[in-house]
């Protein structure tokens, strides 16, 4: 018998709700509503733009919209899932309180979901063939991590960024080049006009992939951002406003090439080391087509690459419902004391280098 699961996501800027229809074999997306800050701005800029207040004002109508998309009413829901962390506590609280209240009043099970686990589940909504074991690359504005996923619910952290996230590097370099926010899409567009090889930027941590050290799968993008800044300053005119269009395009190409080379090299190395035949890319940076094409090319006959469509890569409630529905089906429940946590760890996460037991 099919079950209907509601997902709620308010961990950062997006206010989102989704309805999934899940039967024994798979979960299908029935309704999805995402309201981003951009939309808030289009609505006249009178809505306070940041986090909690914006979520409070729109969450009710976002949930109604998702239910209407799915063609069901509240009473048909079999479970309520909500992002409990990580994220901004004030923003998370809005979704958690709403989810709790709804589940309590409907007398349905409640489940708090980890936002990062949501990203891992996102492609399954379009690609039911995505099943562990696989290597997961999560790349967004707030996270850059490489995970070994031997089974759903079991995660081993291979490596993560030591400073800036990949998506953040895109956003900040976009700003240096005078492009809009978020920066991923404008940089990729501009890079298509870029001349390959005119600018070559450092590949931070790339060499480490050849060594079996602690930083083999680690990332670092802070220095790359600074290298782009120096290049902008040194270019003819020395000021952003003086940069001609072609130079900006060439810089965008060089920057994107550097980021993608590191992401692809580390993901491919993990696939080879683990002997898996599947990799997945999730998070906002997974919208970068050059990245995905390069990873597919690198892995070619060795492994396939599963990536969701853009609206499921950026923050959304469908992925929360997908991860939550899987856990609900296993009989998991959250208590009414469910809390929002800014530092919520991935459930079942094991650190890259297991700490040895206590000294005898």
């Amino acid at each position, binding site marked *: 018998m099919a079950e209907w699961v509601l997902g709620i996501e308010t961990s950062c800027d997006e206010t989102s709700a989704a309805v999934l229809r899940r039967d024994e074999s798979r979960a299908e997306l029935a309704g999805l509503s995402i309201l981003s800050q951009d939309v808030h701005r289009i609505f006249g800029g009178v809505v306070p733009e940041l986090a909690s207040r914006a979520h409070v004002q729109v969450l009710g109508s976002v949930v109604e919209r998702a239910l209407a998309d799915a063609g069901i009413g509240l009473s048909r829901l079999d479970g309520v899932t909500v992002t409990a962390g990580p994220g901004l*506590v004030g923003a998370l609280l809005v979704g958690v309180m709403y989810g709790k209240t709804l589940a309590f009043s409907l007398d349905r099970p409640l489940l708090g979901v980890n936002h990062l686990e949501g990203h891992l589940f996102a492609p399954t909504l379009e690609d039911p063939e995505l099943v562990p074991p696989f290597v997961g690359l999560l790349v967004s504005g707030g996270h850059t991590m490489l995970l070994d996923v031997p089974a759903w619910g079991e995660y081993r952290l291979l490596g993560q960024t030591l400073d800036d*996230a990949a998506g953040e590097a895109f956003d900040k370099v976009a700003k240096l080049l005078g492009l809009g926010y978020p920066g991923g899409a404008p940089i990729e567009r501009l890079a298509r006009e870029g001349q390959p090889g005119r600018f070559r930027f450092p590949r931070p941590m790339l060499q480490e992939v050849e060594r079996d050290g602690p930083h083999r799968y680690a990332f670092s993008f802070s220095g790359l951002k600074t290298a782009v*800044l120096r290049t902008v300053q040194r270019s003819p005119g020395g000021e952003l406003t003086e940069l001609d269009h072609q130079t900006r395009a060439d810089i965008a190409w060089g920057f994107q090439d550097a980021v993608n080379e590191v992401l692809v090299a580390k993901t491919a190395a993990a696939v080879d080391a683990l002997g898996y035949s599947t990799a997945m890319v999730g998070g906002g940076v997974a919208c970068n087509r050059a990245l995905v094409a390069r990873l597919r090319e690198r892995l070619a006959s060795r492994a396939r690459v599963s990536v969701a469509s853009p609206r499921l890569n950026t923050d959304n409630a469908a992925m929360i419902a997908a991860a939550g529905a899987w856990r609900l089906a296993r009989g998991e429940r959250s208590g009414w004391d469910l809390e929002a946590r800014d530092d919520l760890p991935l459930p079942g996460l094991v650190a890259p280098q297991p700490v040895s037991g206590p000294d005898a």
Partner: protein
Amino acid sequence: MIRPLTQDELRAEGETLGRALPPRTVLAFEGELGAGKTTFIQAIVRGLGVSTPATSPTYALVHRYRGRRGPVFHLDCYRLRSADEAADLDWEGLLAEGDAVLVEWPERAGPWLPAPARRFRLHHLPDESRRGLEAL
């Protein structure tokens, strides 16, 4: 006074500062993109006894680390479009709970920023191997 420091010197300076930091201290860090705020703060956070690397909180706005004496909060106001948005950051909660509160781009928090015990500005220098550290 702007002191020109190598990356290693900046890290050493930060660790020393972190180790000696009195409880419940607010520190503010100004400086352009790439001026060395991350490097300096990572070192301070290490000095406070945090074992995980401090990563950029630009997107999440607030990161929480486990320090020797209690939670260390690392904030970045870079993404705030107006000081009004800083009102949502629950400063009272951070100050009540945090052993240290480190704030990047503090000027964007406007009047919401709690008075910092110390304020630093990092500078790009013509010598690219060095960063300028200024105590304001």
